[in-house]
């Protein structure tokens, strides 16, 4: 654990990752300005939400090129629909929903080419230089084995920190289905994750 903390400190000092707190907030006032076409407000909008949209796209699709295309697509669609966005909360909801739906749709159309995890590609997916990179890579590989809807549920839960009710609303899915996806996905991950890679509670000395 001491070694992990030291590694964390070194990487932070090198600027190899940014904390979530560094994501700029986007206010209601800025949204109103963005709706009127104010370029600074629109830029702030992108900067506030691009990580969420891009990460969701990348972890759903597994390919950087496609994730970039999808992210652009989402923001272009937002451009056309900005007038219908009522609040900054609605904006966040809308972006997650559209990104998830577009990704699921693309994966379904791509189904005839079964995707296989590629060490090099999955390494690009992880910006998480905190913690155990081996375990993180393993977890991201397992993520690829989930069905598109299950993958979306897991990402909305653990990347976006939504609760099951919010996930159900975002994906237009019954809440029991969301809970079932979460339960089965975690079970699968537990089964396929070697015990040595996940620290036991007694090993954590914080």
């Amino acid at each position, binding site marked *: 654990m001491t070694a992990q903390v030291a590694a964390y400190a070194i990487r932070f000092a090198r600027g190899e990752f*940014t904390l979530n707190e560094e994501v700029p907030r986007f206010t209601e006032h800025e949204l109103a300005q963005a709706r009127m076409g104010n370029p600074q407000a629109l*830029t702030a909008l992108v900067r506030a939400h691009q*990580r969420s949209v*891009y*990460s969701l796209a990348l972890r759903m699709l597994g390919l950087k090129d496609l994730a970039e295309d999808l992210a652009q697509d989402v923001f272009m669609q937002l451009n*056309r629909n900005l007038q219908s966005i009522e609040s900054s909360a609605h904006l966040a909801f809308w972006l997650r929903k559209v990104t998830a739906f577009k990704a699921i749709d693309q994966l379904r159309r791509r189904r005839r*080419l079964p995707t296989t995890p590629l060490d090099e590609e999955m390494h690009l997916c992880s910006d998480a230089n905190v913690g155990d990179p081996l375990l993180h890579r393993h977890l991201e590989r397992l993520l690829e084995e989930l069905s598109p809807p299950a993958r979306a549920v897991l990402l909305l839960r653990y990347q976006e920190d939504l609760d099951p009710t919010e996930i159900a609303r975002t994906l237009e899915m019954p809440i029991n289905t969301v809970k079932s996806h979460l339960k089965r996905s975690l079970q699968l991950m537990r089964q396929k*994750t070697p015990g040595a890679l996940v620290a036991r509670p007694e090993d954590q000395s914080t």
Partner: protein
Amino acid sequence: MSQDLESQLRTALRPIAPSAALEKKLIASVTEKPAFAPQTGRFLRRGARSRAGWLSIGAAACLLIAVGMQHRLRERDERANGLEARRQVVEALRMTSQKLDLAYEIVKSQSTALDDGNPGA
């Protein structure tokens, strides 16, 4: 262990910042005027005849948009499939090359062992 796995998932799935180049493209996506932005006030004061004319132009425009979008969707699908196929080719060849190399190493170590008078390697 469930809690540890969940906290590891949260850490592993922290959002990733896109590249500066992508950020630029995303900003361009929202700041460029959309091609068919709704212009709500413009047609409301026209007469019925000219409204019908505009409607047929609108219908033609919608058809063009639909055809264009379909073409774009098809292109995007093909690109997605092509990139995925490329990735799989690269992975398949990498794995094959790796296994050929493994065979080579085994043969090499066996012939080295034989040279050293130790056939059991």
